[in-house]
């Protein structure tokens, strides 16, 4: 199997060109073909010499991967299923909203984190995605020219696949790559502290942290990562970081009925987030098979939001999208894996 060019950084492409005896500038030319033009084969890189294209084709392939399944919600949200090099499947959601089109990408196949409320976790960990497989989810959907925002909130924990995620961010935001503003990209983590710090140093993209409760004893029952990286450590590191004016830190908060939706939780949130210029995104919980958790009712949700806003924490409720296609939960790929294993 040939190595994919798609997903390589400019430095890697330049090194590869020199290794093949090609001029150094071939690396830049390849980057432009890979990330800025609508082609899908090495043969179409027409400003490279015929000899250069033959040399490249002997050793490499362009590397785009087509989706094998698409589901479309009544609200316009689409979920794409992409096969991976390891014979597994990942999900990518495209969420239209007025003049915005947000793409939610996966960073791993499955997940190691085992959160109680997450469908992807039920697959266990199946493997890491390469930078190419991450960026392919943006480059290889029909809406690629209309994408306004990218969120790393699909399958997997981005900071458990840090190097490939950082590479993908470099490709998306560099002049030689997709040249997107990092302010249109948000990476979401459950709080892997070393990865979070490296990300903060090496990228300008926004950060979102999955919190779901401010209390340690509750969080450790929902999210086993709490044992290794307590929320208090995550918050301490965030407080020590200068996010500047443009960079955004937000906290994701799925609201569960009778678990994390009380005034006590509001008070604790206000206390632990004191000093951080941040926002909280409240998320409605949509039950997954076998879960003991329930989503809170609409009235409590609105009240919870108002109480936080009254206390000075900018709080919004995320609109639920693509419910009829389980856009956010990993169900499609889980079914696909099970189907493949049974066939």
């Amino acid at each position, binding site marked *: 199997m040939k190595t994919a060019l798609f997903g390589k950084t400019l430095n890697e492409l330049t090194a590869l060109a020199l290794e093949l005896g090609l001029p150094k500038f071939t690396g830049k030319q390849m980057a432009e073909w890979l990330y800025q033009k609508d082609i899908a084969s090495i043969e179409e890189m027409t400003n490279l010499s015929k000899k250069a294209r033959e040399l490249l084709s002997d050793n490499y392939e362009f590397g785009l991967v087509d989706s094998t399944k698409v589901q479309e919600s009544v609200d316009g949200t689409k979920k794409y299923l992409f096969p991976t090099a390891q014979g597994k499947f990942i999900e990518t959601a495209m969420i239209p909203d007025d003049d915005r089109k947000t793409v939610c990408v996966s960073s791993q196949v*499955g*997940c*190691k*984190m*085992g959160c*109680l409320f997450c469908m992807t*976790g*039920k*697959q*266990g*960990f199946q493997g890491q995605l390469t930078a190419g497989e991450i960026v392919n989810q943006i480059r290889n959907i029909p809406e690629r020219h209309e994408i306004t925002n990218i969120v790393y909130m699909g399958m997997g*924990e981005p900071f*458990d696949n840090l190097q490939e995620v950082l590479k993908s961010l470099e490709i998306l935001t560099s002049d030689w790559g997709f040249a997107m503003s990092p302010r249109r990209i948000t990476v979401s983590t459950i709080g892997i502290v*070393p*990865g979070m*710090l*490296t990300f903060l*140093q090496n990228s300008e993209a926004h950060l979102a942290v999955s919190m779901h409760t401010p209390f*340690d*004893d509750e969080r*450790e*029952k929902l999210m*086993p*990562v*709490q*044992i*290794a990286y*307590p929320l208090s450590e995550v918050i301490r*590191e965030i407080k*020590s*970081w*200068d996010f500047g004016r443009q960079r955004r830190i937000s906290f994701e908060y799925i609201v569960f009925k009778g678990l994390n939706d009380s005034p006590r939780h509001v008070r604790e949130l206000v206390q632990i987030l004191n000093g951080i210029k941040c926002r909280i995104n409240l998320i409605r919980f949509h039950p997954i098979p*076998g879960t*003991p*958790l329930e989503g809170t009712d609409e009235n409590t949700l609105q009240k919870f939001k108002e109480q936080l806003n009254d206390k000075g924490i900018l709080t919004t409720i995320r609109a639920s999208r693509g419910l009829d296609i389980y856009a956010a939960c990993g169900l499609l790929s889980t079914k696909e894996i099970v189907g493949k294993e049974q066939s």
Partner: protein
Amino acid sequence: MPKGEEYLKTTLELAEVTITGNEEISPGVYLLSWARSHDFHPGMVVKVTDDPVLPPRIYSICSGNDEEDIRVLFNIKEDGILTPRLAGLIPGMKIWVSKPYGSFKDNQTPAWWIATGTGIAPFYSMFRSGISENKTLIHGVRNLSQFYFEDELEWAMGQRYVRCCAHEQSCNVFPGRVTQYLEEINDLPTNINYYLCGKALMVVEVRDLLIAKGVPYENILAEIYF
């Protein structure tokens, strides 16, 4: 604000220690030790690295809380960066470790401990710290050689120490995975705590199974190796 390597170094508060032992207790599985300089609760973890400018990995402590050394149990990960290097360390060499921390803590109340592979470490620490009186320990492995500390545990815990082996058979060993063993139990206690430690898929499957059998999720505490 400090930047780069310096930032990581100061933030993670690692201390240099001298290795006192590094024993291969089973093929590819090591027990690494250094002198204890802090008190800890059994079940806690430590961050470990052999290079202070590289992010450390987290390991459960695998020794009793009144022993002279702190020990951690690790297996060599084929695609890992740190574990192959840790395996090559010998007594006298230096590593960098954090203070013990974490909330995976048990007490003297009845509980079931469920582990796979090197996930036995926190429970062995609890056992060595004298917290095993009301406990049932279920350990699942692929091969018989992976029942670390089995002589000691079998002698002390007797019938409350259950071994499950997926790929090999032996007397007193349940032939199958931990989940199969649990599925076959009809009267699983639902009013005690369950502690799970191991890889994500085992933890998720066992947690789902316990919940399906009537154990409240609040009674389940899991530590996942990632």
